[in-house]
Structure formats: structure tokens, C-alpha cells
């Protein structure tokens, strides 16, 4: 268990963490402001990835592909909000789950219809290929470092927006008292559409960024969606700070567990059993983490106390 291996795995964990943050920030904002549980957030991630892969295929530009992912997902999110989602704010969670479950079916099959069942590929641009050399003799792919940086920049920008801008103040007010901000003359339904489209564009960006290291295919969004749920349950639903902390915790636990649990178990088991048991436990590690956090704090690390 060398230092280099450890450092690489920590970076992998961070990379997974910041990508999860892009997903969970939108989810938690949408829940915090509108009180909506959105299962279709994974579909917006997928739409982002498909938009990016199509535009990259047409133009060859990675930057344009990312812009396409952002705008494509935002537009899809805005339309879905206006057509379907806004009818659900006053409904109970069961209706929200079902309606957004129905949206997943529609989006997934619709995408399969248009693009076929074969995965698309989105290439890492040449200027982001190859390794970087970090102090301590660590070699790490430049693209993954870029992902971590983009994630951190977006997180900072999101914090700035929410803490310092007018729309951010409205979002925070919306979390606290919906009736009051409507009474102050703010167009609340416009605000909701903006928040939903913002969350959608973050998910779309994550889909495009991750799409370049995995394949772009139907159903790619749901595993990430469920991880994002784990994140916001750990962090506390509605809390951006919680989403950040939860993302990093989940990213690190998942990555480090998968690598090191089998190795630790090898100390007192034979190698094949240790690998088997280790990988089985590692696949459950984040859920065990979630269970532990909930027993300690039933509303998550930064959730509001009931």
C-alpha cells in the first residue's frame, strides 16, 4: 500500500466526488426550493452526455460539446418543468416519484428510439490527454485533474451565486418562505423554472464530462442518480454544503473501499476469499456509511432539524 497508490486513489475519489456534487447540487436545490423529489435528474445527466456526444461528433470541438450539454439539459429541464413538474409541487411525494419515474421511461426510451441501443463515444480532446506529474512522483491523467478543477470551480461559482447575487437571495428566500417571496412581487413560477433549469444544466455538464471517460448510453444516469440520493441523504436534503461534504465522503468511501478493503482483508484471509468478500463489502460501503450517518443524525449532516 504505497503512498503513490494511496494518492492516486484519493484523487480518483475526489474526481468521483466532484462529479457527484454536480448531480446532487441540482437535486438538493430543487428539493430545497420546490420540495420536489426528482427521479428524472438522471435523465438530464444522460441528455447532457448525448447532446455533447452529438455536437462533438458534428463539430469536433469539446468546448462546444460542453456548451451543448449545458444548454441542451437546461432547455430540456425548463420544458419539463413547465409541462409536467410544476403540476407536482403541491402533490405528495408518491405522486412526484411516480410522475418523474414515468419521465425516466419516456426519456430513456425516447433516447433509445432516436440514437439506437449502441453506446456513443465522446473523446477526450488531445490537449487534455496524457498524464500530469504531481509532486511525490505521482502520475495522474490530466483529464481527471481537469474534472476535479472544473467541479471545484463550478461549486465555487454556485456558492457565489447563491450567497451574493439577487437570484441567489431569491432562491434562499424561496427555501424559507414561499408565500412571503411571492407576496414581495417575485415571479415565483419563473424562479422555479430557473432553479430547475439550473439544476438540469449542472447534471447535463456532469453527464458530458463523465461521458468522455465512460460510454454515453441509455440508462447511464440512474446509477449516478442513486449515488446522488445517497449523497444528499448523508449531507441533509436541501443543503448545498451538505451536498459538497456528502459528495466527497461518498466518492472517497466508494473508491478507497474498492481498492483497500480486499487488501486489508488479505491480512487475515487467503487472497481469493479476501478479494471476493472485500469487493462485496466495498460495493455496500457507501450504504453502510449512509446507514451510520442516519442513525447518528436522521436528517443528514447539515439537514434542518425537524
Amino acid at each position, binding site marked *: 500500500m504505497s503512498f503513490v497508490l494511496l494518492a492516486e486513489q484519493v484523487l480518483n475519489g475526489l474526481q468521483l466526488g466532484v462529479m457527484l456534487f454536480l448531480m446532487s447540487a441540482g437535486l438538493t436545490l430543487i*428539493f430545497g426550493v420546490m420540495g420536489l*423529489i426528482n427521479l428524472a435528474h438522471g435523465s438530464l445527466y444522460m441528455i447532457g452526455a448525448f447532446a455533447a456526444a452529438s455536437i462533438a461528433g458534428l463539430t469536433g470541438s469539446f468546448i462546444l460539446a460542453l456548451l451543448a450539454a449545458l444548454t441542451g439539459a437546461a432547455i430540456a429541464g425548463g420544458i419539463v418543468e413547465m409541462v*409536467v413538474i410544476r*403540476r407536482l409541487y403541491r402533490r405528495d*411525494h*408518491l*405522486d412526484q*416519484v*411516480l*410522475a418523474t*419515474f*414515468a*419521465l*425516466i*421511461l*419516456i426519456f*430513456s*426510451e*425516447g433516447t*433509445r*428510439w432516436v440514437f439506437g441501443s449502441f453506446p456513443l463515444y465522446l473523446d477526450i480532446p488531445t490537449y487534455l490527454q496524457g498524464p500530469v506529474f504531481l509532486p511525490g512522483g505521482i502520475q495522474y491523467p490530466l483529464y481527471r485533474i481537469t474534472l476535479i478543477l472544473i467541479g471545484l470551480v463550478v461549486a465555487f461559482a454556485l456558492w457565489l451565486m447563491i450567497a451574493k447575487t439577487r437570484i441567489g437571495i431569491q432562491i434562499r428566500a424561496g427555501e424559507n418562505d414561499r408565500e412571503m417571496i411571492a407576496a414581495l412581487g417575485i415571479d415565483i413560477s419563473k424562479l422555479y423554472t430557473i432553479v430547475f433549469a439550473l439544476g438540469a444544466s449542472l447534471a447535463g455538464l456532469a453527464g458530458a464530462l463523465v461521458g468522455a471517460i465512460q460510454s454515453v448510453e441509455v440508462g447511464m444516469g*440512474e446509477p449516478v442518480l*442513486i449515488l446522488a*440520493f*445517497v449523497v*444528499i*441523504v448523508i449531507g441533509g*436534503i436541501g443543503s448545498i454544503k451538505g451536498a459538497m461534504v456528502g459528495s466527497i465522503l461518498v466518492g472517497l468511501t466508494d473508491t478507497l473501499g474498492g481498492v483497500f478493503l480486499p487488501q486489508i482483508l488479505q491480512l487475515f484471509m487467503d487472497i481469493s476469499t479476501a478479494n*471476493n468478500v472485500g*469487493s*462485496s463489502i*466495498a*460495493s*455496500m460501503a457507501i*450504504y453502510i456509511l*449512509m*446507514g451510520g450517518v*442516519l*442513525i447518528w443524525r*436522521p*436528517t*443528514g449532516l447539515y439537514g434542518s432539524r425537524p
Partner: protein
Amino acid sequence: MISERLINIILIGLLVIIPAWAYLADEPFTITLMTRAVIFALAAVGLNLALGVGGFVSFGHAAFFGLGGYVMGILAWHAQSYTPFLELPFLIEGTQSMPVIWVIAVILSALLALVIGVVSLKTTGVYFIMITLAFAQMMYYFSISWSAYGGEDGLSIYVRNSFPGLNTLDPIQFYSICFIILMAVLALMARLVKSPYGLALNAARQSPKRVEAVGLDLHQLQLLAFVISGAITGLAGALFADLNRFVSPNMFSWQLSGEFIVFIIIGGVGRLFGPVIGALVFVGLEHFLGEINDYWHIYLGLILLLIVLFSKTGVMGLLVKKEAHHG
């Protein structure tokens, strides 16, 4: 208006007449479809106790369905490969006897529901939905990573398990087993919701504070409902695995958890026979839309969306036009 009782009788009639017709007309595929519908109905009847009567939306009932499936798969696999399941500290052999498998599936699903329930029922609302979902995902990934039992490929069982005195490979006989189990469980449910316990559980959904104020233990009420609910869905899983003679991690998939909820919603929340209508409609749509178009899930999604947005009562509600009395 038709009474709910009449609809229930008509439904039971359909469940008898359609397979009987299929048997006489020599249409084994129709019998298999009906078996599938009956098993799905059983799984959703289990969920309905938690969701409809108890009022907590479990989005992770595939955990129990899959566990039941794996109980069948693992025991039958050991029996067909003549290897013991466990030698130490005491010998446990595999088995191909359905009743034994059912009992074990019910007990283990109940235990899993107890563990999941103890953690999840500390929370409510959205947290509960997400946590049950996460637990089911945990089982899903666990089954994929456990390579001893097929991992991602699952387990195939060559011969359907046996039931004393019956030839279970004959579609109509296996259907009869599933049908009788469904009827027995529905009868049990009908009694349960009218029992003092069922009434208390119903009250706990409508007004938790009052239930606590009269001195009932809310947590215990709900936990018991969750355990019974999980056990029934686990039994359905064992039957489903036997129907396909195959079990794979897909039985733990979150889509399946979602579909169980869909059955209940299509039929009508909290109605005793709601899940039965829902499962019949779903399997029917799956079959007929699937023949027209490979992308039939789009239509399913649209239908579901329309039901949620514009009709809150499901098929039962449309037919009966009376408030569900939740059981």
C-alpha cells in the same frame, strides 16, 4: 355504481376463466403471462400494506423480491449440483422442494425487512423513499459482486422445483399454485386490515400524533407492517424465480421497485384488489404494446404520467367512485 366487492369477484373470475380458457385452447403462453401477472400482483399486495395502508412509500421492495429469488436460486442450485450449502458448523443441504424454499424465503425477507425497517423508519417522507431505494441498490451491487452465485450472470435452474403431488412444469399446475397463494394472502390481508392491528396502522397513517397519544407504539406498528410487507414480496420473488427458472441481480433492480408502485397506482392506492388490477393491466400493456413497438416503455410512461396528473384514484376509483377506505 358497482360495488368494490363485485369488482373483486369479477377479478377472481377473470383469474380463473382466462387460464382455464388458455388451458382448453392449448395456449400455454397465455398461462405463463397470467402467472407472471399473479406473481407481480402478490409482490405489490405486499408493498400495498406498507404503502397503501401504512402510508410509507418504499421505493426498495425489489430488495425483498430479489432476496426471495436468490433463496430459491441458491438452494436449488446446491440441490442440482449436489453440493451442501453449508457444512460447518452444521450441514445444510440445498433443496428443490417449493414449500421449504417458500418458508425460508419468507423468513429471510422478513429479517431483511426488519433490518432495513429499523434504520429507514427512523425517517419519513423523502428520506424514507431514498433510503429504501439505497438499500435495494446495496443488495443489487452485492449480488453482482458475489461471484460464487453467478455474479452479474445470475443462476439458472434446470428443473422447476417440486411441490408434493403436482407436476410443477405443467404451466396450469404452476399457475394454480401461484393463484392459490395470491388468494390466501389477499384473504389474510382482508382480515389483517380489519383487525385491531390493521385499524391502528391505518390510524397511524392518518394521524400519527393521535395514535401515539392513545398509547400505541407508532414505530412498532410501522415496523411490523414493513416486515409483513417485505415477507410477502419475498415470497413473490421465490415464485418469480421459479417461473423463469432463473435468478439474476435484475430482480433487485430499482426499476422493479418502481414498477411495484406503478401496479398499486394503476389499480388504486389502498384497495385490497388494486395491485391485482394494476399487475394485470401492466402485464397486458407489456405484452400488447411490446408486440406493436419495441419502445413500448414510452407509452407506459405517458399513460402513467396521465394517471398521476389527472386521475388520482386508479382503475378501482374510476369503477367504484367512492373514496378508498384503505383496505
